[in-house]
């Protein structure tokens, strides 16, 4: 028998500041709490405050800075503040998307941590009425030589695949990088994109008093209690003992939940809906109450429970997966229950909305919580953390480094370094084709994935981007670059970029230098979003990514979404044909600061590596828009944006994707500032420099003149269209420039492919 009176006594016991401190509530916040509440909280109430005021739920360190993001353009239907962002994609349809981190759980228990990250982001999207149509993930692991890295990669990849593959949503794109800065704190950022009709979008807001609160999905267990608090704390060695706070995912139930929710959403039964993610029943009910300006009263005995003897505290803080909370319209309970019965899911009315503005909870007939809602959400702490301006880096001084002996070897080394090497071993574990609308995925090493809008000839382009070494070198310029690259990648497949979601991963915001990175990166991103008309519509902030006092490299990841109006007008890396002319859009100055070359070849990683390539947003927009126009006019066969590893690596990827060789004349290829004083023209700058706003094209020779004329009219800098080079039948990459050190470099395609494809499978098959 359960001693209910003992449970009630424990729940109602008055808590003090010491207890609050154990819950992660500091002295300042304790004062705030008792001022708002006008008394000490009991245990349930304290638990609720602690999760709602955690960094993860309250964004208390970042909120005031996030407000700098542009969040609107002509396409935005819903910006930040709901479960996910919503954009208009025409024909009465909307794309709904968001990216979210599951960093800490994935480090502690990689399979379940990553799996439940996918599950959570899917719920954010279908909560709003969208059928999920694509998944993307951005992963960052520690140094490959770190003893934990291999098992973390294996576990995270298996977890992402295990969840997405079972639910039946294709994983179409992603990025994976390695750096020692993530040794003790990996990043697992997952993005979901869904499709909905504009007249069937559901929000957390809109609930009115007097309506039933409906709980659906899995039963509530003791798993994941205080996950949100964990996600807001720094790690230290031995934190693997936190494993019970990592939730366990059940993708089969998620699949049922998707189908059941979408079936119910097709009726007119739901007033407001919120998934139970971090902080579970607490945050979902608080969000709906707060956004509706109402109160809630719930009887926790009615919550479906997996275990006996659960306390109100445990029920409210559980992060059991695959659960949803909704406020139904009056009289719709039977209809809703019938639909959830069909899918064998639990579904119970557990309470009512009220007009009190309070959250009232009962267990065993006793009130165990009665607190006002606003202090938990809108009126939560909002800090202006002290921050310091990042120190600008001195330019990279290349004079002390010799030109490489063999440029071909450099190319092979870059193409096989952990960040550039093919991630085939990863994406072959993801079902990329389920739902039958994947036009282009990771399979092509493409700029962005292309996913057809079901039943139409339109498509969404999706990409995720971040270059942490740029952000570390200069948070403001690096922040601009993150957004600019997403814009370029979407444009490079022929899509009109519409909006982004962001996932801001940083260290401890209580450290002024980390806060400086956060502030400046946000400001750089915001400037790019504004100039490119590419607003932020949803996002997530993950702070305290540190282990034993060492923060991760600043990693603000963005997920970009663009619209393709006509699937006949797209481009990928794959389409290059023998005899095609190669053209480079944009100016090559040979910037090697903070480049992959500097890190992998010169061994410079940090201050010495110099500043990142500057981003001129007007040029970025002009060049990307120009390439999109070329694609729309059907003038190009293959397109690839130039990023990590410069034009040599971009050309190498284009050659690998098409299975053709290529010949590139560096001298005529580039608009190069050969006499640039600070750099001086050297072949390595031309080959591996990472100047922004550049895009490599393969075009039929007879279209080259038209492209040149269009470029001139648009004011776009373009290489010599007939002298740059061409795609060859010989399966070999040849770079030549008789005027520089390079003369001629030949790399057989087979050798390049082996180097590029070989690294990850070889690494993963090693036994420690």
């Amino acid at each position, binding site marked *: 028998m359960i001693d209910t009176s003992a449970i009630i006594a424990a729940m109602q016991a008055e808590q003090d500041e010491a207890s609050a401190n154990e819950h992660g509530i500091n002295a300042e916040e304790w004062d705030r709490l008792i001022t708002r509440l006008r008394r000490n909280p009991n245990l349930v109430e304290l638990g609720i405050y602690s999760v709602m005021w955690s960094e993860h739920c309250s964004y208390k360190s970042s909120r005031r800075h996030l407000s700098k993001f542009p969040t609107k353009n002509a396409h935005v239907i819903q910006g930040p503040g709901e479960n996910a962002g919503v954009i208009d994609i025409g024909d009465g349809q909307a794309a709904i998307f968001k990216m979210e981190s599951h960093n800490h759980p994935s480090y502690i228990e990689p399979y379940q941590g990553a799996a439940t990250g996918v599950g959570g982001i899917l719920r954010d999207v279908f909560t709003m009425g969208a059928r999920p149509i694509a998944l993307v993930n951005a992963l960052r692991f520690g140094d490959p030589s770190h003893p934990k890295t291999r098992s973390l990669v294996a576990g995270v990849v*298996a977890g992402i*695949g*295990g969840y997405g*593959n*079972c*639910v*039946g949503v294709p994983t179409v794109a992603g990025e994976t990088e390695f750096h020692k800065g993530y040794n003790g704190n990996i990043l697992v950022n997952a993005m979901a994109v869904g499709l909905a009709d504009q007249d069937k979008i559901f929000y957390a807001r809109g609930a009115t008093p007097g309506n039933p609160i409906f709980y659906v999905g899995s039963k509530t267990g003791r798993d994941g209690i205080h996950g949100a608090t964990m996600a807001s704390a720094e790690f230290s060695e031995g934190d693997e003992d936190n494993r019970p706070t990592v939730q366990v995912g*059940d*993708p*089969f*139930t998620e*699949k*049922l939940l998707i*189908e059941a929710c979408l079936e119910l959403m097709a009726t007119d039964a739901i007033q407001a809906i919120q998934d139970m993610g971090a902080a579970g029943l607490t945050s979902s009910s608080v969000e709906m109450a707060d956004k509706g300006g109402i109160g809630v009263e719930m009887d926790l005995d009615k919550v479906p429970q997996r275990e006996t003897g659960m306390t109100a505290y445990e029920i409210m803080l559980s992060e059991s997966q695959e659960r949803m909370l909704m406020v139904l319209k009056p009289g719709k309970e039977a209809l809703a229950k019938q639909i959830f019965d*069909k*899918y*064998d899911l639990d579904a119970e009315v557990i309470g009512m909305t009220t007009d009190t503005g309070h959250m009232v909870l009962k267990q065993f007939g006793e009130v165990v919580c009665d607190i006002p809602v606003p202090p938990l959400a809108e009126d939560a702490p909002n800090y202006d953390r002290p921050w310091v301006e990042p120190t600008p880096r001195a330019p990279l001084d290349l004079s002390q480094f010799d030109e490489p002996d063999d440029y071909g070897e450099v190319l092979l080394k870059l193409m096989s370094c952990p960040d550039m090497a093919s991630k085939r071993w990863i*994406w*072959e*574990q*993801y*079902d*990329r*084709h*389920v*739902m*039958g*609308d*994947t*036009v*282009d*995925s990771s*399979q*092509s090493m493409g700029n962005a994935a292309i996913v*057809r809008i079901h039943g139409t000839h339109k498509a969404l382009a999706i990409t995720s981007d971040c270059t942490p070494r740029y952000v570390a070198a200069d948070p403001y310029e690096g922040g601009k670059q993150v957004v600019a690259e997403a814009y370029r990648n979407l444009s490079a497949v022929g899509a009109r970029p519409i909006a982004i979601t962001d996932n801001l991963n940083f260290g401890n915001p209580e450290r002024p230098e980390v806060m400086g990175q956060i502030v400046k990166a946000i400001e750089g991103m915001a400037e790019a979003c504004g100039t490119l008309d590419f607003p932020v519509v949803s996002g997530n902030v993950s702070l305290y990514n540190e282990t034993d006092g060492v923060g991760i490299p600043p990693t603000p990841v963005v997920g970009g979404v663009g619209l393709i109006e006509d699937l006949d007008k797209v481009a990928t890396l794959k389409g290059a044909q023998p005899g095609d002319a190669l053209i480079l859009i944009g100016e090559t100055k040979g910037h090697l600061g903070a480049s992959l070359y500097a890190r992998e070849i010169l061994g410079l990683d940090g201050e010495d590596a110099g500043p990142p390539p500057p981003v001129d947003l007007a040029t970025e927009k002009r060049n990307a828009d120009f390439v999109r126009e070329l694609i729309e006019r059907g003038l190009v066969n293959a397109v690839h944006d130039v990023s990590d590893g410069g034009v040599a690596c971009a050309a190498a990827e284009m050659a690998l994707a098409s299975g053709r060789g290529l010949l590139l004349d560096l001298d005529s290829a580039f608009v190069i500032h050969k006499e640039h004083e600070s750099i001086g023209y050297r072949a390595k700058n031309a080959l591996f420099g990472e100047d922004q706003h550049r895009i490599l094209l393969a075009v039929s020779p007879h279209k080259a003149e038209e492209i040149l004329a269009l470029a001139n009219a648009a004011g776009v800098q373009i290489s010599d269209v007939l002298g740059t080079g061409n795609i060859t039948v010989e399966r070999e990459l040849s770079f030549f420039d008789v005027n520089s050190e390079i003369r001629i470099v030949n790399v057989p395609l087979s050798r390049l492919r082996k180097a590029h494809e070989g690294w990850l499978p070889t690494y993963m098959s090693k036994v420690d």
Partner: protein
Amino acid sequence: MKTAVIVFPGSNCDRDAQVALRQATGKAPAMVWHKDGELPSDTDLVMVPGGFSYGDYLRCGAMAAYSPVIAQLKAHAERGGYVLGVCNGFQILCETGLLPGALMRNTGLNFVCRPQRLTIETTNSAFTRAYPSGGEVSFPIAHHDGNYVAEGTVLDQLEGNGRVAFRYIDNPNGSARNIAGIVSDNGRVLGMMPHPERAIGGHEGGADGLGLFDSLMAAA
């Protein structure tokens, strides 16, 4: 041709099957929910789609073999009706005994999704007649448990009776004798791990699966 697709709660290629069958036949297939157990009486072809039938936390397809709808599926097969089981559908057909053998975990232990080259081993079946004999096709694969196993005598029988429909080129999962798909004794039940319904044109999967649906249309 009248078609139906069985929808288990964890099926996730049911829509892909629906799209492919509608494209092939010009008519929407009946979508049969697993609890209903009723196939339309004049159904010519039943497709058992890919996915994770009941979560497949046990051996893949093991629970589905006891689903209410299976009795009807068996009766349909016994009447000489056509059955196409793809991926999880193949696993289910093996678990129900409609086809011999079983699908075990891939020898590489990982889920594998890639374009997979196959040889057409027999054109003497309702599913492969439209392909050139000895031809080669590429279908997407996407599975964790596609390693086909059976007793040596069963494999000999399958080969001897021309019941191996598709074989892998570069075996992705360790399947015995590179077997990717087999047909029943009467040639009317096909189970295969690769996805022909994801190769019907218009996307990354290519269009090599059209031959399979064309073959079926000609057979009906």
